[in-house]
């Protein structure tokens, strides 16, 4: 029958989907190598791994977490602007609990803090989910409410101050090491893996893509879209809260004002760079992780190649635009056509074109 040729064909397509984000990441990393010859070097010091690539993974961990939740929200055709505020609230609650505890360094206190943060996140996610799925508020508006209000709530919790704490077990989450690796990397990797498993080895992924791809048809096919969509916002809030714990743990402080500021925009960008359409439907967890790493690598690159701070944002914007253009099949086709026209007779190679664009 026709089975044999089709399955590898499908695999080639998925591979293709991740090809461009992976290529961009590789180019960015290689560009760093040109400026920093030992960029890929990783040392083992005092039983801990150090190196630029480790740093990228470490500092990128919160963004990866937030982006994972964002991916599922966007797959349903929604968007979650409130993740930054959730990051701040989670960090503030955890640090407040620890700072007020009799023994900040005890495991019980830290677990309590984590529990409070995650529990609150579930409530925040539910609020978003109910507004979007049951009340029918547009996602961008519904989550904007919490984005604005949540920042205020975080400042109320911290009383407008920065709460600093000293708690060894809490420090592990964002700044500690386990098996020689920064714990944050392991945690975000684990969540990414679980998300991929949860969506792809159950039918959750298919149902989410169906709801995002055609909500009307999904209702007529008997999918409980309301429940699914609500669930996705809870998941997004949980991911954001974990990221909040990570951020506050890394600096041993909660800053209601600045923790997770604008992270929602980076997360949306990571999802889009990863190949998930803002219109909803098909999503890619792997693509999102790559997208988040691209953004983090970009931030690192800005420092390593010595871009003056005042032009940092312009540089970032330029690279992001380039990345988005390269991902567009239409743009690639146009570029290939023009290239072919200029060098008549030479077969246009998209890969070289890409390199030229990024290097420019």
């Amino acid at each position, binding site marked *: *029958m*026709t*089975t044999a040729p*089709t*399955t590898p*064909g*499908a695999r080639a*397509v998925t591979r293709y989907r991740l090809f461009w984000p992976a290529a961009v990441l590789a180019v960015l990393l290689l560009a760093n190598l040109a400026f920093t010859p030992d960029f890929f070097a990783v040392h083992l010091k005092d039983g801990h791994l150090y190196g630029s690539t480790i740093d990228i993974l470490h500092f990128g961990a919160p963004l990866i977490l937030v982006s994972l939740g964002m991916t599922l929200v966007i797959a349903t055709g929604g968007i979650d602007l409130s993740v930054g505020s959730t990051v701040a609230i989670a960090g503030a609650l955890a640090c407040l609990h620890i700072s007020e505890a009799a023994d900040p360094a005890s495991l019980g206190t830290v677990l309590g803090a984590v529990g409070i943060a995650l529990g609150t996140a579930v409530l925040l996610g539910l609020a978003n989910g109910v507004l979007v799925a049951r009340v029918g508020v547009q996602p961008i508006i519904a989550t904007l409410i919490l984005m604005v209000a949540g920042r205020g709530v975080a400042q109320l919790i911290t009383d407008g101050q920065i709460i600093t704490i000293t708690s060894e077990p809490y420090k592990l989450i964002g700044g500690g090491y386990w098996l020689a690796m920064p714990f944050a990397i392991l945690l975000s990797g684990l969540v990414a893996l679980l998300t991929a498993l949860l969506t792809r*080895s*159950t*039918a*959750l992924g*298919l*149902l989410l*893509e*169906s709801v995002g*791809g*055609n909500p*009307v*048809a*999904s*209702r*007529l*096919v*008997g*999918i*409980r879209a309301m429940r*699914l969509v609500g669930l996705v916002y809870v998941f997004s809030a949980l991911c954001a809260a974990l990221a909040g714990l990570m951020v506050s743990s890394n600096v041993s402080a909660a800053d209601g004002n600045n923790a997770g500021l604008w992270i929602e925009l980076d997360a949306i960008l990571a999802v889009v760079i990863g190949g998930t359409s803002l219109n909803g*439907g*098909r999503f890619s967890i792997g693509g999102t992780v790559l997208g988040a790493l691209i953004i983090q690598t970009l931030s690192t690159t800005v420092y390593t190649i010595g871009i003056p701070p005042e032009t940092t944002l312009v540089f970032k914007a330029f690279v992001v635009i380039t990345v988005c253009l390269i991902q567009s099949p239409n743009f690639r086709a146009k570029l290939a056509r023009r290239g072919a026209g200029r060098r008549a007779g030479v077969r246009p190679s998209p890969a070289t074109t890409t390199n030229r664009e990024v290097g420019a």
Partner: protein
Amino acid sequence: MRQQPVLEVRGIRKEFPGVVALDGVDFRLFPGEVHALMGENGAGKSTLIKVLTGVHPADGGEVVLAGQRVRIAGPLQAQQAGISTVYQEVNLCPNLSVAENIFIGREPRRLGLIDWAEMRRRATELVCTLELDIDVSAPLDSYSIAVQQLVAIVRAVDVSAKVLILDEPTSSLDRDEVRQLFTVMRRLRDQGVAILFVSHFLDQIYEICDRMTVLRNGRLEGEYLTSELNQVELVSRMIGSELAGLDQLAGGKRRERSAPATDRAFLEAEGLARQGSVEPYDLAIRSGEVVGLAGLLGSGRTEAARLLFGADHKDRGTVRINGTETDLRSPRDAIAHGIAFCSENRKTEGLVGELTVRENIVLALQAARGWARPLSRTAQDKLALRWIGALDIRPGNPEALVRNLSGGNQQKVLLARWLITDPKLLILDEPTRGIDVGAKAEIQKLVADLAEKGMAVLFISAELEEVLRLSHRVGVLRDRRMVAQLRNDGELTPERVLATIASGAEQ
């Protein structure tokens, strides 16, 4: 009528890739008349209107407006030439005031600024000429759809008053609102405006129109005085009698319809109704029985079926399934009771275009199982391949994106999706529309076979021949009412169904 027509169209031709939408159509519109444009879906009504309003340029033929040959290059030119259109959905800004809507884009000005007092004064004047009693400074959306439509007409007439095209203005209006609209239309007619009226409601046509032009399959069927063509003749001219064609394709004679084995109804609906979509109707469907629904477009065929599937919420009436009263609150409830529904809008209400054939096929079954009990990939592949084979879906690649398939193959994917859920009642809304004859015959055969094996089927189609070939009984709908249920005992002819549709009573 000895007058000169205000608008005359001669030999107009319009082609779209692969289809001739209008083929040498002539059409005349006289000042001071209400003229109906009649035809079934795809007859070319909307194409003709779009040519007249400059949305589509004609490929051939000529348009004569007030004695002069004109070339309508766009909607703006049409408006300047004196042709205004009011569409089914109101094309105004609901957040602006009535007066602003009437004068938007051509506001009265003084010293470069909008003269609000003048605008209100003139708006009030215009509204009064149509004896509408509304406050012109109130926002448009504070009024009903009917009034909004009338405001659109006021605007259209004020912009250019020669020809007014009303495209299905009554489809969302209730009885009183229709009467109000008709009063306004008569007044405009008496002022000498030529009105082109499109509606699916035969009674309304006969109430308001002086003449009518009937189109069929892109050709002119004829122009008639309303008083000289009765409803039965009109309907048969709209639908035409192409009885022989498909019967031969399906393999000679009409299928012998043996009575279903069981006498107990699988589903009984009693007084089922929803305000504004379908009047109370009774319907019983037995296992192994095919019940057809016939009626013109907009007669309530789809609406009746959607109530049985819980896709729309009923206002009144009861549904019994296997004798037990059941409240179908959502499609999910209906599916749990073994009901499946293939919508007539494959793209918008059926398939998820960016998913693959396999994913679309397993979707209903997977939704019923819930996300936590996934079908294994092997099981999915097996199901997909089996049904791709059984229904001959092409290309036979389960990983092809469903949006890239042809209409007929998409329809088969949709059928496969429901058939793997093993439904007890299958509701098919226009399953053969827009697909080629071969696929059509295959689907018809499939429906007959499924019923033979004991499935109850509700079969909706605009093609009477098809309905009669498959159904044991035929429910006839007209103007959102089930007017008759006819036994298909071998003596039921399309003509008799047509007569029932036209007269609104069993013939």
